[in-house]
């Protein structure tokens, strides 16, 4: 027992000896976990798709955070941290958002196309429906998404888009959709896909259901990966099948969707962010971010030179 006690005493000493020393501070690399759509968008934008779902491609000592909020509070606490967050949360976050390739992130620069680190919120619908009425409601919903009513809702929830004066209101076009005038209380429309779009999707359903015969909107969001799979892919006829599904990224080449079944809703921008006290840099390039996330650059001094 004496030996055991001595070993216990040695443990903290060994722990102290294993600590890393400061000096020229290393960059702490923060990333979302592999299931995140934001991570997908970020890695795609900086041209490092290999690391979208593969942690082995990341710099040693990377730190995984569980959500956008977790990312913000981590960067806030770590003077040497770098990470990426959604533009819609930047203003209130208290972290410092970096310009990307010399362009400051803002709604205006996203809309004029100069700020490049963006991802689109897209949707996909089924190619065929067992119930014709479901198909008609889906068509009406797609038309609704182009109206100024729906666009205002998306904008309110952080989506970046322009509402043009020429955009119709739902009142202008509802006559084209006979199904909207019918009583649809008995019809359930299944929504799902991306969790990043979930809040927006639910708001849109809540707004549209009363306009379209009070159909029942059922939401089951499990990630962008299921958007194609459950509408037109392997699960399209399973119990988890969906009528309308969202993706917070572009559909990939392996997701062979039927023509005319997808659409873009709005844009979300991702911002590379550092601690508010970090005055070392205010701009970053795709190449630098690639080097940081792959571990080629590990010190802040290498970025500043």
């Amino acid at each position, binding site marked *: 027992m004496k030996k055991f006690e001595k070993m216990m005493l040695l*443990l903290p000493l060994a722990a102290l000896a294993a600590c*890393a020393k400061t000096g020229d501070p290393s960059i702490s690399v923060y990333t979302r976990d592999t299931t995140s759509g934001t991570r997908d968008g970020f890695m795609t934008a900086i041209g490092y798709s290999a690391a979208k779902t593969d*942690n*082995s491609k990341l710099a040693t*000592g990377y730190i*995984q955070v*569980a959500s956008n909020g977790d990312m913000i509070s981590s960067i806030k606490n770590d003077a*040497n941290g770098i990470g990426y967050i959604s533009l819609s949360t930047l203003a209130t976050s208290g972290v410092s958002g970096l310009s990307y390739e010399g362009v400051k992130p803002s709604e205006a620069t996203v809309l004029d196309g100069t700020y490049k680190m963006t991802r689109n919120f897209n949707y996909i619908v089924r190619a065929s429906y067992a119930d014709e009425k479901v198909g008609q409601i889906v068509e009406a919903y797609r038309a609704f998404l182009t109206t100024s009513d729906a666009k205002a809702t998306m904008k309110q929830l952080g989506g970046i888009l322009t509402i043009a004066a020429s955009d119709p209101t739902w009142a202008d076009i509802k006559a084209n959709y006979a199904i909207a005038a019918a009583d649809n209380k008995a019809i359930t429309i299944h929504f799902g896909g991306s969790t990043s779009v979930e809040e927006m999707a639910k708001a849109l359903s809540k707004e549209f259901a009363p306009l379209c015969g009070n159909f029942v909107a059922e939401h089951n969001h499990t990630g962008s990966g299921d958007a194609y799979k459950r509408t037109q892919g392997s699960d399209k006829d399973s119990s988890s099948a969906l009528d309308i599904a969202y993706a917070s990224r572009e559909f990939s080449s392996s997701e062979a969707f039927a023509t005319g079944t997808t659409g873009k809703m709005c844009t979300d921008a991702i911002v590379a962010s550092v601690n508010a006290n970090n005055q070392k840099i205010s701009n970053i390039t795709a190449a630098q971010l690639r080097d940081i996330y792959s571990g080629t650059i590990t010190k802040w001094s290498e970025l500043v030179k």
Partner: protein
Amino acid sequence: MERIGQVAFRKGQKRTALDQAASFAYLFTAVIAASSLVLIAVFLLVKGLEPFFKTYTENGVTFQVSFWNFLFAMHWYSLPKESGILYLTINTLYVSLLATLIALPLSIYTALFISKIAPKPFGEILAFAIELLAAIPSVVYGLFGREIICPMVDALAQGLGLMSKGGLSSLSAAIVLALMILPILTSLSVNAMKNVPASYLSSSLALGASRTETYFKVIIPASRNGIFAGLILGLGRALGEATAVSSVIGNAGSGPTFDLFGTSATLTSNMLLGYSEAVGANAEIRFSIGLALILLIIGVDLLLSLVQKRMAKKYGQD
């Protein structure tokens, strides 16, 4: 049939129909309670082993999960890339051990104070306050750790001239866990110390031992069993805690980490990370980690009871 619970029945006293119905109800609830354990065990075993016998096809890649890699890999790259739990297991044990090292002396001294030194009403207030610690939900400990402990650990690291990632570290996790197991350890130690016969204390004092000598050489050894019971329960909680640990540990993707100020990851934090959005193999493998965690906890508990038995043999039963 010499059960204590049945002594109350006088011999020859007839059981009414109500009694019989009631005992049937007791049996029923007992079976449900016990069978839920069996259900959980079977469920975990089946779900935990399933991923190793399945072939997954995800994003155009067909793969199988290697049992060998799962047990021995020192990184978690997310399936189908090589992902294993060895570093997570080592980190889990290390962080829990650190937590116990912090909590054990604290709770033994506190228990000594409450049971032997403090005036009775004051001791009771203290004991109540410490028991209340156990009622705080783990997510609150997580928030507290993130907002209070992490910055303190970060400041400590900077004071020592060391690197820390905003305080997300093994040490922060250990401190939060120590706070969480403190109430269990303390209350069981208090109980044990209160049950040490007063004659032990007076005999020791009569033999000329000072109070401090008596506390450390008589009271603490005599309460060994209670302290050990607290240790077993506390370690079990520390090993299995997820929410609070995930908030402060940094979820490192490889390891093991022995650096006090370095980010780490445990079995539980890895199970929780991305759980809400994981699909397919990356969702199902979490059951396997859960199975490994339960086996680890059972293993540690068995080891501790073995140590306890050996100590009892060596020093004699109280």
